[in-house]
């Protein structure tokens, strides 16, 4: 397992997510209004919608294409048989640290 410093937390607009391309893998990192950080695979398992562009909050994100919902902490989806990969992420000294 490795940890990556993705740079300043301020890159992520408050309440939204942005996408990082980590060695070819798209990972969405979300910064909630309450300060919590979450990271998931960026692509929705349904039709590959970019989850980083989705509306997020309350520990969930809604895919912008067809509104499938995912729990940011567990990766569980609203539709049967759909889930996303999640990653551990935290803030240290104002920087985003992602564990792979």
């Amino acid at each position, binding site marked *: 397992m490795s940890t990556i410093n993705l740079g300043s937390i301020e890159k992520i607009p408050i*309440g939204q997510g942005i996408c990082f391309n980590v060695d070819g893998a798209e990972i969405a990192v979300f910064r909630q209004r309450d300060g919590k950080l979450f990271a998931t695979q960026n692509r929705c398992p349904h039709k590959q919608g970019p989850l980083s562009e989705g509306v997020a909050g309350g520990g969930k994100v809604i895919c912008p294409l067809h509104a499938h919902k995912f729990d940011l902490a567990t990766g569980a989806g609203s539709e049967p048989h759909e889930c996303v990969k999640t990653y551990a992420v935290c803030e240290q000294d104002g920087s985003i640290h992602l564990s792979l």
Partner: protein
Amino acid sequence: MNNPKPKLVVIGNGMAGARVVEEILKRARGQFDIVMFGAEPYGNYNRILLSNVLNGSQQAADIFMNPLAWYSENGIKLHAGVKATRIDRERKVVIGTPLKKEAPAYAVDAAAMPEAAVIEETYDHVIIATGSRPFVPPMEGFGGAGTFLFRTIDDCDQIAEYAKTCKKAAVIGGGLLGLEAARGLMTHGVEVTVLEAAPQLMIAQLDAEAGQMLRGTIEGMGIAVMCEKITTKIVRVDGRIARLDFKDGSTLATDMVVISAGIRPIAEIAGASGLSVNKGIVCDDQMRTSDRHIFAVGECVEHRGRIYGLVDPIWEQANVLADVLTGLNPKAEYLGSKLGTKLKVMGVELASMGETKPSLPDDEVVIYREPSRGVYKKLIVRENKIAGAILLGEIDTAGVLMQMFMADTVVSARRADLLFGTATGAPVLSVFDLPDHAQICNCNGVSKGAIKEAIQIGKCHSVSKVGGCTKAGLGCGSCKSLVAQLIEAYAGEVTEDPSEHYYVPGVPLEKSQLVAEIKRLGLKSVSAVFRELGGGKEDPGSKVGLASLLKTLWPGEYEDERDARFINDRVHANIQKDGTFSVVPRIYGGVTTPDELRRIADVAVKYNVPMVKFTGGQRLDLLGVKKDDLPKMWKDLGIPSGHAYTKGFRTCKSCVGTDFCRYGVGDSIALAQKIERRFQGVESPHKMKLATAGCPRNCSEAYVKDLGAVAIEGGLWEIYIGGAAGGSVRKGDLLCTVKTHDEVLTLMGRFMQYYREHGKYLERTYHFVERFGIETLRKIIVEDSEGIATRLDAGIQQAVDAYKDPWKEAELPAYPAQFSAPELAHALAVAENNG
């Protein structure tokens, strides 16, 4: 485990096979080790919806009932794409071979790959659910390019693909499926002829008169119908189908042929295994074949001399078999099914049950005809019970008739009640009188007993809660009134589920209450609303709706939190299926200039835009744009945003009006441009599409817009509201007639403001206008019955004044990451840096 579980092998993975397995799992999960053979390489799907795949209203992926994951989750071993060919009853093994990829699952020769390894599964019990195959009447030339059956997902795809190359198509078979196939083909733009061997359409469900009436209606829709036509030969010229020859010597020119002439049971495996086979696999009342370890279910079965090709009997058989096999009720018996169907054939409503003609001397026949409306109703009553009924064109009483027919209920002495309902409106049949096993929801097979249990034990006292618990009412929805009656019967009264009326799901208030609370507490941001009214809990599904409302309530003062916006409104462009965006510049009234067009073309070239397309709203759409190119393109264009992405004012189309048109009686172009300049950027509960027409010929489709203005002789303008021509089609209601462009602008603005204040989130104007009624709206908007016109006018003026071209954010993004592409990061490099 020392005692292995008994092993159940199911041959066939269609609706019957999958259903019986579901029923077994429901009764005794884990009782059997289950293995399934499925000749199609998919999970199982709802064959009833296939015609929707053909006509394009559903995707193939949407009709799967159990995706492949379902099998593994339930511990079922599925041999997908493997055809079981024989049961060795001595060794008690089922033998299967993989199918060739291109062979249809129902092909007679099984087309197994010779080199493929044979698969063997031992068994304690076998269920054969091989279903049926389409019947092809004997004719020369069937097979090869241009000839199709209508049975599987692959058939649908191929028919649709081939139809693109054809002008004419013939459908052989005038039954239910044949007509569905004809409807599907019509959507692909071919001329369709339906050919039926019998003297009438749908001979299994209709009598001659109803068949004739249906024929008239269908011909009126542009589908040709020929009865008593037996095809003897498909004639090809230069390899392509040219015509059909009929037995009576006549011919028909056609480019393709689809056959839908009924089904025949697939029984080869039973025959090859020495089981008793007649027309189908012969079964007793417990669905047992001539071998006591082997059962059969579905369309491959012959029970008491009958073969069933509909879904309800299959469900009944599956229930009995599951009861017997699991030992829940070893004496369960299937005694045959009563058949009734309720359906829509090309928009014609139709219900048919039981017999279509009287057969005993004392049978009483009641008939009502109304040819001008295409209505026909027929009832056959035997010993005071319904022996058969046909309802065509008007089927209000079909639900109760079906219930009474299925349950053998003694019917009212006034037969007219059965066809038209009672004069007093009292129910013809009390659901209270039905036995518990009576099926209420015919789509999902939910019995009265199951609904009663949900009401009494599950405490479901609203129609939506009963639906959530039992699935009743979630299919076509026609049984919802019966569900409501049952709730009344067993719980006293139907409770409305209050959450159905919340403005957004995350804040438990209706719109009027929510507005009052927001104003009282002075809440100006979405996060403030969650904090004060949502129990401190953020709900992403509510953010966008709240943002829309707050922006209307606090023009100029609203605290715009960008995370509460949908992606389209964050980047002022419409997200596409591949994550790219579309750019639609504002073109006022659909009138542009050579200079503007040149700039659009230059931008399209510079940024490698993969598609440039005219929109339905008379503008140009640049599709397939990368997010980080958006601001650069806007700067180069120098044209404001067309707001083709937002819930709000979209566009105002126009016809050429008086400028050039010979017929125009009003200046529709100038009016459209004034409307578009005034209302651009105004947000609302849902999108608003507008148009102006220079005369009632309506070339710009103003009658079917959210708001439309139509010029009429005498220098007048009619204003229409609540029109639609998308997923719903509705002609707008005439609000009023005025003299000047300015009056049109005022009244349109006033209506928009009222809609902004009172519309539910995502409620289009056509629902809004129907909900309030045009008379009510005319009083408020035109006659000012509530004295709020001045306030409404001021409200919309504030929204107009607050207009800013969002594409100006190209110069100064609202936040740094607004238009950024994914940021590159490298795991190794940074991990090393971290030591």
